[in-house]
């Protein structure tokens, strides 16, 4: 009789009736073969593995994280509500201690969705992990959390949402942005002036194999997490580092993903990308589930697995080591880096151009942050899109001090509705979301 060592919760939502477009990689049967594998393995019969029904998030859950233009309904489809809901269901089961850990196998993914949403980016419209995490903070008072993103693409959306949050350690391992979408995620991207060092990026060269990934986990991710002492570890588990993925150039394996999971010991895993739907996903997902459940996964060997062919070259080993050294040094220097970023200014400004590849939208942002010694700072984003939308988004952080709270309110009150299509205030101190329109 098989028994899971750890009680593991699963939400499986393959959205068999939803796709971006008929031949898009993020389409109906993306999880079909994974479902076949899960069913054939009899995973749900294993004592200690429990399948939950995915709930649907509500609009408040989304507004806790995103500023959506023109509104939540316009940027989300039903499937997004359920996909984020699946993550929330698992998170709740973990918090309620019904299970030790859990995995939301949901689609569509979310880690490219930023704080301001004008449309879809990199197959993502809203950020499942952030919606889940902010719900946990609201409902369970969770504070310090580590999010480790093992998708092959840099999770620029999650990075953006937590850029100014010193209580969320965001670490992304991904294929070097010079060779792939979204083209970001370099070691010098360390977070904003109030949260320097709590964003860490470990770009890996194309053709990195098991050795490189596990080196980065052992050398950087685990020691940094140990030092950060999060209450929860969340894994954004994209599976496109697999050697068979059609969109990427890595040499990672099902066993490698399972090893990574065993080492990282995440509390909550949320599926992100992965488009080798027949050659990788069924095996990677089984590997991750077995690793979470503390079961033997040595027999999960995908077709085409050949350790000799999948071995990374020495030069890659060198590159990975250098990158890891840089990231470790930045982490060690984070306080000094933060001080030099802040200098003695009262505000920091940042201008950015953001491209929504799924919908072809260009957005320009001007961000203003109060450099606050007491909290993570009131934040104001002036966002314009080439579709003619102009909005002002004001964020008062969860643990805002009185001064930042006053400032955020003042920004909102004093903004002139005739200058913008929409003015929004996200006040996390009282979990509210307000909108002023023209």
């Amino acid at each position, binding site marked *: *009789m*098989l028994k899971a060592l750890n009680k593991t919760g699963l*939400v*499986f*939502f*393959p*959205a*068999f*009736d*939803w796709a971006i477009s*008929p*031949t898009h*990689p993020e*389409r*109906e*049967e993306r999880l*079909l*073969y994974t*479902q*076949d*594998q899960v*069913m*054939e*393995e*009899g995973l749900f*019969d294993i004592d200690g593995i429990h*399948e*939950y*029904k*995915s709930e*649907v998030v509500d609009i408040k859950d989304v507004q806790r994280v995103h500023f959506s233009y023109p509104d939540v309904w316009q940027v989300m*489809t*039903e*499937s997004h509500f*359920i996909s984020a809901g699946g993550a929330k269901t698992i998170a709740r089961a973990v918090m309620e201690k019904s299970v030790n850990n859990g995995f939301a196998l949901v689609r569509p993914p979310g880690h490219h969705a930023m704080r301001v949403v004008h449309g879809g980016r990199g197959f993502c419209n809203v950020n499942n992990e952030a919606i889940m995490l902010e719900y946990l903070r609201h409902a369970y008072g969770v504070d310090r959390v580590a999010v480790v993103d093992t998708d092959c693409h840099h999770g620029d959306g999650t990075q953006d949402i937590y850029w100014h949050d010193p209580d969320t350690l965001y670490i992304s391992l991904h294929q070097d942005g010079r060779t792939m979408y979204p083209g970001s995620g370099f070691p010098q991207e360390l977070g904003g002036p109030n949260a320097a060092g709590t964003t860490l990026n470990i770009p890996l060269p194309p053709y990195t194999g098991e050795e490189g990934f596990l080196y980065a986990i052992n050398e950087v991710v685990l020691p940094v997490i140990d030092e950060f002492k999060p209450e929860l570890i969340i894994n954004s588990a994209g599976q496109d580092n697999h050697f068979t993925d*059609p969109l990427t150039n890595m040499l990672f394996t*099902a066993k490698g993903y399972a090893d990574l999971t065993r080492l990282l010991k995440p509390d909550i895993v949320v599926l992100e990308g992965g488009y080798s739907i*027949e050659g990788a996903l*069924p*095996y990677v997902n*089984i590997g991750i589930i*077995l690793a979470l459940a503390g*079961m*033997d996964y*040595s*027999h*999960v*060997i*995908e*077709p085409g697995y050949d350790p000799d062919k999948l071995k990374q070259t020495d030069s890659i080993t060198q590159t990975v080591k250098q990158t890891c050294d840089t990231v470790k040094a930045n982490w060690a220097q984070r306080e000094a880096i933060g001080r030099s970023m802040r200098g003695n200014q009262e505000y920091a400004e940042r201008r950015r151009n953001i491209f929504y590849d799924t919908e072809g939208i260009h957005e320009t942002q001007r961000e203003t942050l109060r450099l606050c010694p007491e909290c993570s700072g009131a934040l104001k984003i002036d966002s314009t899109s080439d579709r003619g939308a102009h909005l002002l988004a004001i964020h008062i952080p969860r643990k805002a001090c009185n001064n930042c709270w006053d400032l955020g309110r003042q920004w909102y009150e004093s903004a002139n509705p005739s200058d913008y299509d929409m003015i929004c205030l996200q006040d996390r101190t009282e979990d509210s979301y307000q909108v002023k329109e023209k």
Partner: protein
Amino acid sequence: MPMIIGLDVGGTHTDVVLLGENGLEKQVKVPTDTAALFNTVLTGLEKITENVPADEITHAVLSTTLTTNAIVQGKLSPAGMIVTSGPGIHPEAFRTDENYFIVPGGIDHSGREIEKIDPDKVKAAADQLERSGIRHVGVVGKFSARNPVHERQIAEILGDRFDRVFLGHRISGNFGFPRRIDTTFLNASIYPVHRNFFEAVSHSLKQKGIQVPIHILKADGGTMGFESSIAFPGQSILSGPAASVMGSVAFAPDYTETLILDIGGTSTDMAVLIKGVPLLAPHGVDINQYKTLIRALKTQSIGIGGDSCVRVIDGELKIGPDRTGKAMGYGGSDPTPTDALFVLERSVGGDRGRAIQGIEPIAAQLGLSMEEAAFEIFDKTCREILAGARQMIADINSKPVYTVKEALQGYQVNPDHILVLGGPAAYFAEHFENISSYTVDTVPECQVANAIGTALSRTTCEITLFVDTQKGLATAPEESFSQTVDLHFSRVDAHRMAADLLKQKAVKLGAQTQDIETELLEDLEFNIVRGFRMMGKNLRVKQQIKPGLIHDFKTISKKIADSCVR
């Protein structure tokens, strides 16, 4: 108008009914001899056919406990297993016993061969099994429901070295490798006992000149020909709960959702009917340590019944889940809810004086009068049964869904009607109505409802069809069916093909054409995309003959309902 025999083997006695144009034409009870079940069946059939012209009887349906008992009591014949697997959980985890051999070979989720069979390894396993004196063998491959080629190759290598070889893909078209192993193993290990029973019954009936086609009841509340069941003996497991559900179907409204409560001595069996159609369990029968793919009705049992032991623990009344024997009013040793009914004079037939002796100490411990204590016991029993039923409905409704449409439409089972059967049904029904918002009814002829349900059940089966228009192939591995199709083969074509296959299968299993009511269980269509180009379609269609009652049941059941006093 046909005459049908229904025979339901129970733990202590076996009920046999003859149904015809006048409803219940005849009923007999014979004691169950578990040591020689076939004698029981034979006596039952003999008694019911006395003075009935054999040519007027269309068929007989048996619900027996033979195979179930063999499994529950661990009286299985040794069976060997030869297993192949691709990547995943190591098949060692699903070992049945020492006669279990893992041989090379592997098929992936799409039915592609990823590792070849090694004939020498298969032969070596067969040699070993032969040396151990094994005569019945199961062969199971991972994903054989998608592509059975390895199971067939192994069967070919085994040739006729064994009395019978069971192939996993022929037993179920559903996914679930561990369950396929258990199911195939059970089929192989109860085969001898089922076959002997079949031969004994057929032989004796022939001798006595009773020439009636025999069907058996399955766990999904459907029937199959006795002869066909030889190849699938596992199908006869756990037909008991199905018999009582089918016995209720005839008396359930067909416009709403009904909860079936079969109140027995030790436990209460619960099931749900949606517009008169019983709900199926998501996977299959679970029995002892075995989890199978044998289609079954969704039934759940709670450990509380008319003879549950009643006691007071820490000032709290506790009912069940154990049963020490009969009610005290019937000569038992411990107080029971049935005794509470005697005390309340809601039920007669037992010795009220003895029942009072049982309830008195309980009343004293609770500080209540005797009537109050008896009512408390009865009331609590009813409430706990209803709580169990609500829990089952909540479980059914928490079953995950995999499409946006289902998630948003969120169909929820919500019964508003209860049908009670079992010995004390009538006494319970009224109180259920008092303490809940359900409308409550009892099943007429409660005492033989199971036998009536057995008689009226129709033949059921299901089929799974996979179509890959890129490969140009339609397959139903369970039926050994494969046919080439072109790129234009559509979903509608697939539905038609599946329906044809299903009808053929049902007729082979003994169905009457007028009883073939097909239903779509699964209907998925995906584009096959290679490098951003649409290359074809991947279709999956699962169809079943709905569990239900035969064509002529309405007239018969109406007669039964009219003729009996409620």
